[in-house]
């Protein structure tokens, strides 16, 4: 091979190896870090698409509405628990920490956590959306209540816009 070809070959090989390694890493760490999204009914009855129930100890993401009147706070610590519902059974979320500003009873939230037992999730993160009117698409879908239009009655939704 002449030097020019050799150099090209080296470059191409380097690129291919680099890409291969990168793709491998990406796929590997992706499988390690994906959190499946469940609704409260799916926790109890299994996922809609596959019927698979989550296992105890599994990391997952859950979205639903906070059941009004279900928020219970520990007097001495920051421990809090509340019920989460979509269209079926209620599951309990246990969380230690500070809830987001927009957390309200009757509002949609998303939590990341670990399934402790069949209907209890220990959350390490609770998210509520910036916007009062806004509902995460996942939750809106789960609750079966899609907000097509903003409350203004015109075709604009309120949003932070970026």
């Amino acid at each position, binding site marked *: 091979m002449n030097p020019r070809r050799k*150099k090209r070959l080296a470059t191409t090989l380097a690129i291919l190896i680099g890409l291969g390694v*990168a793709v491998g890493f990406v796929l590997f760490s992706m499988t390690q*870090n994906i959190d499946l999204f469940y609704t409260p009914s799916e926790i109890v009855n299994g996922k*809609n698409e596959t019927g698979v129930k989550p296992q105890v100890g599994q990391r997952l993401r859950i979205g639903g509405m906070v059941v009004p009147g279900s928020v219970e706070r520990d007097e001495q610590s920051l421990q809090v628990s509340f019920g989460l519902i979509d269209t079926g059974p209620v599951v309990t979320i246990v969380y230690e920490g500070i809830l987001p500003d927009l957390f309200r009873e009757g509002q949609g939230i998303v939590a990341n956590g670990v399934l402790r037992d069949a209907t209890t999730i220990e959350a390490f993160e609770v998210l509520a959306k*910036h916007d*009062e009117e806004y509902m995460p698409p996942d939750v809106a879908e789960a609750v079966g209540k899609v907000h097509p239009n903003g409350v203004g009655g015109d075709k604009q939704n309120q949003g*932070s816009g*970026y």
Partner: protein
Amino acid sequence: MIAEWGHIAQILALICACLLAVIPMVGSYRGYINWMQLARPLAQLQFLFVAIAFAALCYAFIQDDFTISYVAQNSNSKLPWYYKLSAVWGAHEGSLLLWILMLSGWQAAVSVFSRALPLVAIARVLAVMGLISIGFLTFIQFTSNPFETLLPFYPVDGRDLNPLLQDVGLIMHPPMLYMGYVGFAVAFAFAIAALLSGQLDAAWARWSRPWTLAAWISLTVGIALGSWWAYYELGWGGWWFWDPVENASFMPWLAGTALIHSLAVCEKRGVFKLWTVLLALSAFSLSLLGTFLVRSGVLVSVHAFASDPSRGLFILAFLFLVIGGSLGLFAWKGAAIKSRGQYEVVSRETLLLGNNLLLVTATLVVLVGTIWPLIHKEIGWGTISVGPPFFNLLFSILVVPFVFLLGLGPLARWRRQSMAKWRQRILFALGLSISSGIVLNAVFGDVQEFHAALGVVLGIWVVICTLQELLSHQHGNQTLWQALSKLSRSHWGMVLGHLGFAMSVVGIALTSTYTTERDVRMQPGDTQPLAGYVVKFEQVGPMQGPNYRGTAGEFSVWDGDKQIAQLHAEKRQYLASGSMMTEAAIDAGFFRDLFIALGEPLGGDAWAVRLHYKPFVRWIWLGALVMSFGGGLAIFDRRYRVARRRQSSPAQAVQTTEGEAG
């Protein structure tokens, strides 16, 4: 009335854009000089009309013109005037108008500062930008018109600006970010024009470099501002969330960083031409993809946004048109472009290629992580989320070889680097950085963390390599000062860019490993330890602001017997919207931040309180500022002005600027 004026200006701008996209382009193929000459005035006219439209919207906000639905939705008469102004880009419609203002601004700037460009080139560049303008102006006109009115029934007062956005960070963050996003349109237009003419030479690279740098600087500052804003305004003390919207701005930044480096190779050595063009096309396509992701509402994000399927569809179609069209052109014309110039395996070219590959890999990682949930859902596997651990893991792996190459690059010569001369320097830098990194971490860190030590080692590695490179310019009996003062501005730009990056890496590594976060229950009078300090909750009481009321907590921070800070944290409830907001209290310092935020009331006077100690967090943003300053120096390099008049070949450019990475 003002709404109509604004609307008319907006339509006139659209007409200008249509003319701009067609006349100069046709002229450039038919050889009609006067048609091509129309490009500059049309670009400037379009800017003028968009500016009028934008000014009209600003005026409507300042005047509380609630007949305009967009104003009524996003402003309130009690809002201070500066927030009324920033509310103009506080939501979808207005921010698009800002976007198009930026695009027209870049267009006008290109038309003014490119006197030396051949007429054909400038006609095509501006025509391509005109095409992009058409896309966005029709989008704004037909799906998101900010001038839509609510007549005859309009509200007495507005719904108020989202309280999160009532902040200085928001006044500056979106304009900078958009300037960056849209700035890549210039690099894109230059690349398309070059492909059309088939002339991808050093002159092309030299013309696009300052523009690409300008876009990159704006994007860097914009992202840093956004991160800083999230840090103090969202009240969680985090500075990066791997949120889809953040990722959307990060992807063009990564591609843009690769682009400014490969443009350098292209200009100096005449190689990597096709690769550079591809990067220029990708950087802007990724900006558009980001817009699509943000605007269409297909992704769950902490940034709430207006979701409207027709908008999403429009941008998706536009995206396909731009990406498909440009890649098609690339496939058609690209084959004819040959890179001349040779280089050996051990050379600066190879190192820069490595840098590019790593940056592109990083871009792909972000892209995959951002859109994978979307694909996963579409093919019916259920909804998933790809969380920060994924990105953190991959980035902490990618940054190591990246920084390693970053240190080596400037030390290597173009074409060929002899290993013998190099080895000594590398070993010296490696030994010194690893040992000092470990020692520093052992002396100052309370807990030994691998990631923190790694970050410090990487930072020191860059500093030592940069110093070695600077010292290597001293020849014969020159003093060091004489040698350094001969270096060009773009050389200093490179030095600062690299040092700034190292600073950010160190900041990220130390903040993420040594941060102490405590969520505690506190009553007035209580004290809590925090990283060697003592935090005392002094008092809590009601407060009243112009458009909100709330609770204020006073804290004092003690180091032994000495009070080092008095902090004032607030919990606000905005009157018009009823939303709650946390205003964190931050005692900022060069080496550490103390961050206190009121969480939620727990009955009586007790509050859940967030106490954070964040070492070196400022370095993340300071590093970004240093990087951008470096970029700024590079833009004002003398050769961009001199060389424009003197058409020099790549070979000459190499001679005159030997040893620079710019």
